[in-house]
């Protein structure tokens, strides 16, 4: 450090006009965009954990049959409304490995409840890789091997049983197959339409906007309830519950897009006036490109949040629909069907385990939320 006599300060470090102060890592330069996003995403711990969790959930779906001790509609008519049985390890202070105490039911005509008495003298070990009810692995390969099953002559209700003596745990596992998939179709349809039509209306404006807006208005003014009522009469009667539900969720999606479309349109109406959009247009970018590369990314956060928010609605949509006789129904199993069965006071107060399906819904929804949040963060330039 040098101070000149006139009080001036002059830097005395060697001066190299070519030096650069910042050196980005080389690997960043060669990495494609998604790797950068992924790297960023990895730092969002909660998002990462949620993502992995969801991945596992989806990977598990084909093996639901293998992982659950019972098949979904298998009834144990002597164990109606059985409470959850806990898995024990030690019997009279001795290690036995995982086992349960068998339970027997008694009708209590005072309270009109089933009373279950565990037989604590006979520990029955849980069987592993055992044979029980038949199911189709991944919906294709018939099999009857289960990861674990009830001991011979006893039951294994990890999360209790329902009114007909069906295992809640197994039903939740099977229910995931429908709840985690079919509803998503509705979301996809509605997002697809909503984004496409909304962005066209917002970006092009003018006549197209007018036209799309009228469609939106009409669709929105059309009453949904009577449509459903009409539909419930019109669906061919020999369709299975799943295909009915599939169609319903597609229709749900078709009716659901206007909300999103209007949000997209409104945002695009304002975004299209941004200078960078003009710049892109002046470079000759096609409308599609402008929408995809410039407008949509700037609305991504909203879309991600909206998608996350539709998931519980889609999983539970059927509960509202079954009010009108259109929801999923037995023998199909889904979380909504199970909750529908649990919609009465007794299930809340006396048999709370029949409302357990709420838990996976909440967990899944939160996982999607955190995943979406992580994604949002890793796309956010200001967080870099």
């Amino acid at each position, binding site marked *: 450090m040098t101070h000149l006599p006139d009080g001036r300060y002059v830097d005395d470090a060697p001066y190299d006009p070519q030096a650069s102060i910042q050196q980005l890592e080389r690997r960043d330069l060669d990495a494609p965009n998604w790797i950068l996003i992924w790297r960023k995403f990895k730092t969002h711990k909660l998002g990462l954990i949620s993502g992995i969790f969801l991945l596992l959930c989806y990977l598990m779906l084909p093996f639901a049959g293998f992982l659950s001790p019972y098949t979904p*509609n298998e*009834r144990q*008519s002597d164990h*109606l409304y059985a409470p959850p049985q806990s898995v024990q390890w030690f019997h009279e202070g001795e290690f036995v490995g995982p086992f349960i105490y068998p339970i027997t039911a008694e*009708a209590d*005509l*005072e*309270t*009109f*409840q089933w009373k279950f008495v565990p037989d604590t003298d006979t520990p029955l070990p849980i069987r592993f890789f055992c044979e029980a009810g038949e199911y189709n692995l991944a919906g294709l390969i018939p099999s009857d091997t289960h990861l674990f099953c009830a001991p011979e002559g006893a039951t294994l209700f990890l999360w209790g049983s329902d*009114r*007909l*003596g069906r295992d809640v745990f197994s039903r939740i596992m099977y229910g995931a197959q429908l709840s985690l998939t079919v509803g998503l179709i509705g979301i996809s349809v509605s997002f697809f339409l909503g984004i496409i039509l909304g962005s066209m209306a917002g970006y092009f404006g003018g006549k197209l906007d007018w036209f799309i807006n009228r469609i939106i208005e009409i669709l929105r003014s059309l009453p949904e309830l009577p449509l459903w*009522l009409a539909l*419930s*009469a019109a669906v061919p*009667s*020999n369709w*299975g519950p799943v295909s009915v539900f599939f169609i319903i969720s597609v229709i749900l999606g078709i009716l659901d897009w206007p909300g999103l479309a209007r949000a997209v349109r409104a945002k695009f109406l304002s975004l299209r006036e941004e200078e960078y959009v003009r710049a892109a247009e002046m470079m000759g970018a096609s409308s599609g490109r402008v929408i995809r590369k410039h407008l949509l990314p700037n609305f991504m956060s909203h879309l991600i949040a909206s998608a996350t928010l539709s998931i519980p609605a889609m999983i539970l949509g059927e509960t509202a629909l*079954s009010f*009108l*006789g259109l929801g999923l*129904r*037995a*023998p199909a199993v889904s979380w909504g069907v199970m909750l529908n*069965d649990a*919609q*009465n*006071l*007794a299930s809340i*107060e*006396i048999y709370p385990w029949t409302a357990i399906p709420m838990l996976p819904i909440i967990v899944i929804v939160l996982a999607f939320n955190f995943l979406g949040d992580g994604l949002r963060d890793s796309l956010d330039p200001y967080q870099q």
Partner: protein
Amino acid sequence: GGIPPLQESTFWQAEVDAGDLPPVQERIPDQPIIVDLEARGRELGTPGGTLNTMVTRSKDIRQMVVYGYARLVIYDENYQLVPDLLASFENEDNKTFTLRLREGHKWSDGSPFTSADFEYWWKDVTNHEMLRPSGPPDFLRVGGELPEVSFPDPLTVVYSWSKPNPNFLQSLAQARPPFIYRPSEFLKQYHGDYADPAQLAEEVEDTRVKSWAALHNKRDNMYKFDNHELPTLQPWINASSGKKIRHNFVRNPYYHRVDTNGVQLPYIDIVQMEIVAPGLVAAKSNAGQSDLQGRGLDFRDVSILKKGEADGDYKTRLWQTGVASQIAIYPNLNFADDVWREVLRDVRVRRALSLGIDRDTINKALYFKLAKPGSMTVLPTSPFFEQENRDAWAAYDPKAADALLDEAGLTKRNANGIRLLPDGRPMEVVIETAGERQEVENALQIVTDTWRDIGVKLVMRPLDRDILRNRVYSGNSMASVWFGWDNGIPQSYTSPGYLAPTDQVFLAWPKWGQHFQTNGAAGEAPDVPEAQRLLELLKIWENATTDAERETAWREMLAIHADQLFGIGMLAEAPQPIVVSSRMRNVPQKALWAWEPGAHFGIHRPDEFFVAD
């Protein structure tokens, strides 16, 4: 005997003192019904108090007419017809009916109740072109013929036909009775033939209806019970107007029944009927917010009701439902699909399907084993009950079912073990339900499992009740689920019309029913000998002159149903929870909960219930 010394009710005391209301002696008929409660094992009560109860739709305030159960004639607790509003009646060969009114009987507004009210209905209402374009109701037509009606004196009304109309008096005792009388004094203000045209026009304008006829029809709602100005003869009169959450009904000062202490019935001063959401009835009962509740409660609510007894200060009683079957499957013999129709018409198939139902399991899962498994037939309370009818084809016997199906030619099966129809389609029975009752869904779930074992696939499809009916009537539905016959306790005087193909509402034969109802204009004539025989037997019953003849007809018809399984019943006598506040007296411990006959609480005489403090 003589009339005991009458006591004025505290409720109306003030009005009587003020001179707005005549004293009780002048209000009740000259010969009131004197109820001997003690003879029937009931307590003599003290008047007063309020009864809270709930219904689930705003139009259900008409339940007060049902519960009130004041009819020209009523069923007593033994299901025998006795006069109620009438002083007496005479029946000549089911052709001529002479109805005699009580001297001095008054409507709730104090106007006299006389044969003029019957005449008004007959001449100025039901036979009036504008008020009833389609004329008098069906139950008054015998083979299309209308009765001769005459009104010889103010207390006498005579209905007569040339052919017997054995159902006439029973119709008058229905839960929803055909009111063949109207408060003429009140209604004439709205009748174009009587009222001052200018005033009427003004009234029509005010009410925003299109014509005086519409206005008259709107005011004239004996059953709907929603017009608080309309005089009534029921024990309680509507004291609130408009669409409300809670409707109040207060004691009718002119009611025609008194107890042996000279206390005018009803005992209870005020009935408060609250309209609540169907799903909340159990919750509110559980919280002790209803004094008397049957409607809106289901057997599955029992456990929670029992649990709430301690805090809610009530008891849960289990009555029996009076329908012939709690859950019954109706294969549609008029299904539009030719192949399926033939299959369903094969009695062996129906029997196999019935044998394939594990009724005990259903009973256990849904009713704590408290219902009675069995085919659809009458209940033991009926003189026609026979255990063998109930047991017919009702045991769970998959082997026998398999054999029957094989015998019926449905031997081929597909890879999943489902039998194939003659044309190669898999045997998937689509059963449509009204989607209102979860127990139906649960029961069908169990049936699904056991039917699969006999090679039949069950597909359940919940619909809305109107949609379901429309589909059945048009022949579009293969099979449906409903309750069994409404009237599970017929007596020999009960018309067996509902056992014969006379009405499309029996979901197994909509087209045959239409054919009968429209005199052949629509639908199809029954082409199954058993169904034809049912029609014959109905004829026999109608023309019978003795109870013995009627009884034989009844028994044969029941036997045919038990054998043919037109409706496949699952269980009967299911328990119905009745919540009764600990303050309530005279509510029976065990009883039948039936709409027809019985009008739910009606036959148990709620006007005799009272509140003890």
